[in-house]
Structure formats: structure tokens, C-alpha cells
């Protein structure tokens, strides 16, 4: 099973995040039996969805979900380009 090979597993998770969650910017790293997910998504639901997809593929491994939800703050300041 290519899922046993960490590099292929990371690539397959990355592919499925693109296919099923439309997230292209999540970095997937495998360290031993830990799967690290890093990046930014728009909502807490999307953060959970990303984790669920990774969990579904990476059976037997633990997931470290370090994905952040992007905070859209009120605009402030400006830059003058002269």
C-alpha cells in the first residue's frame, strides 16, 4: 500500500484536500505516526473538514491540525506610493 510510504501518503492527502475541500494551500507533513496539517482556511467548519479528510486516509496515524482560520479584520491604515 502506497499509504504506508509517508511521502505518498502526504501527496495523497494533499490531492484529496484539493479534490474534496478545494484547499490547495494546506501543507501536509508526516513525522512518524503524526500527520501535520498547516495552512489557513476561511471557516472553522473548513478546518474540521480538512482534518476529517486527512483522518480518513491516514488510518492508524494521529493528526495534528495546525490549520488556522483566517481572520478578516477591519481595514486600517494605508500606504502612499509616491
Amino acid at each position, binding site marked *: 500500500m502506497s499509504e504506508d510510504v509517508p511521502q505518498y501518503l502526504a501527496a495523497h492527502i494533499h490531492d484529496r484536500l484539493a479534490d474534496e475541500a*478545494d484547499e490547495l494551500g494546506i501543507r501536509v507533513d508526516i513525522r512518524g505516526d503524526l500527520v501535520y496539517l498547516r495552512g489557513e482556511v476561511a471557516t472553522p467548519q473548513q478546518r474540521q473538514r480538512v482534518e476529517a479528510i486527512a483522518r480518513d486516509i491516514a488510518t492508524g496515524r494521529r493528526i495534528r491540525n495546525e490549520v488556522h482560520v483566517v481572520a478578516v479584520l*477591519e481595514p486600517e491604515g494605508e500606504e*502612499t506610493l509616491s
Partner: protein
Amino acid sequence: MISVAAVGDLHVGSDVRGHYRKHLTGIADRADLLLVAGDLTRHGTVAEGRIAADELRDIGVPVVTVLGNHDYHSGAELEIAEVLRDAGVTVLEGNGTVVHCDGTRVGVAGGKGFGGGFAGRCASDFGEPEMKAFVGYTKSFAARLRHSLRSLDDADVRISLTHYSPVKDTLAGEPPEIYPFLGSYLLAEAIDESDVALAVHGHAHKGTEKGVTPGGVRVRNVALPVIQQAYAVYRLSEASGRR
């Protein structure tokens, strides 16, 4: 002086309907126009396009946008552009427009753009048809961008608006291995051939805000995760030009 608000990568969906629009209240007090650097949607469906259109409709300043790769994902890019236009948003795909802001003619030319990489580390128009198609698409877009920027000769200030990046400066933070999928130097080359005051792009969520083309044109990556606010504001004058 004109104030240009800019943002990219809104990635709206039904779960965040109306969220972004709340931050646009009062934009007319802060800016003369809003530029959106593509990826308005997540899956590129017409339904998401309608949500994006509702976020940007009647906000009190003109809105000019380009589409991004996500907006092409479902093959509905033409319909998405149409629903945005129906909401009064100007959608550029290789063409240009002039917005009149308080007596200043602001010319904006742009489109989605594409990848290929940066000088010295880039894909070449060589080999298999698939490779030629990849590079050829970017070349053909760059030619249209060049032409559209040049055609804005009656504008007082010229801005380039793309989804993909013209430079690698603003990709810093992204893995270097994926730079060829994030932008192309061909866009910068086209920009550098006109008197452009600012080049705005999105796409690189992990990148950085500020860069400059080899010809000295200021580049700003306004992807929402990069600017971390609803929009950035840049003040430009007719004298704004190369650094």
C-alpha cells in the same frame, strides 16, 4: 491623489455568505475604487459566483475584478463573470478599463494570468504539446496584458491587476518548488513596458505583501491571508511611478 482599495482570494461559499460584505461598509470614505485580484469563489460554481456578486454589489465605489484559478474549477468562469457584471462589477480578462475617480482617470488592465516561473527558473515553450500549451497560455496572456496596458494611454494612473504573481518577491513564504505555479516573469515583463504605478495580485496565500518588478514597478500581493484585513489601501498620484 486617489485611494485604491485592493483584496484577493475572498473564496466565498454559502457558509460565509454576507460575512465579507460587512467589512465593506464605509469603503467609500476610505477609497475611490476596489480592486479584487481573483479567487472570489472556492469551487468556481455559479452559485458561489452569485454569492460573490452579492458581496460586491452596490458598495459605493466602482469594483474591478479578475477571476482566479478557483473561479475556473467548475468550468463556469464565463457564467461567473456574467453574474458579477450583472451586479455592476467590471471583470477583466486580458483587457482594460478606465475608472473616473474625482477627476483622475484610473486605468486598470489585467486578467487571471498564469504560471511558468521566474527568469532563470522557469518553464520553456519547448517539447511536448502539453508543455507548450502551459507556457503558451501565459505568453498569450502576457501579450494581451502588454497591449491592454499600452492602450490605457489616456489614463492618468495605470494599474495592473492579475491573480497570478508577476514577481517572486511577493511569494516569499511559499515553498520555492511551487513558484512556477504561482506566477510568471512574463507578466512583469509586460508591466515594465508601460508606465504602471502599481501591480496588484493575489493567489499566494503564504506570500508577502510587497515586491517590485525588475523595471521598478511596485507589486502588492493582496491575498486575504497576506494582508489580514478586509482590504489594503494604496494612495497613488499621477506622479506615482517606478521606484
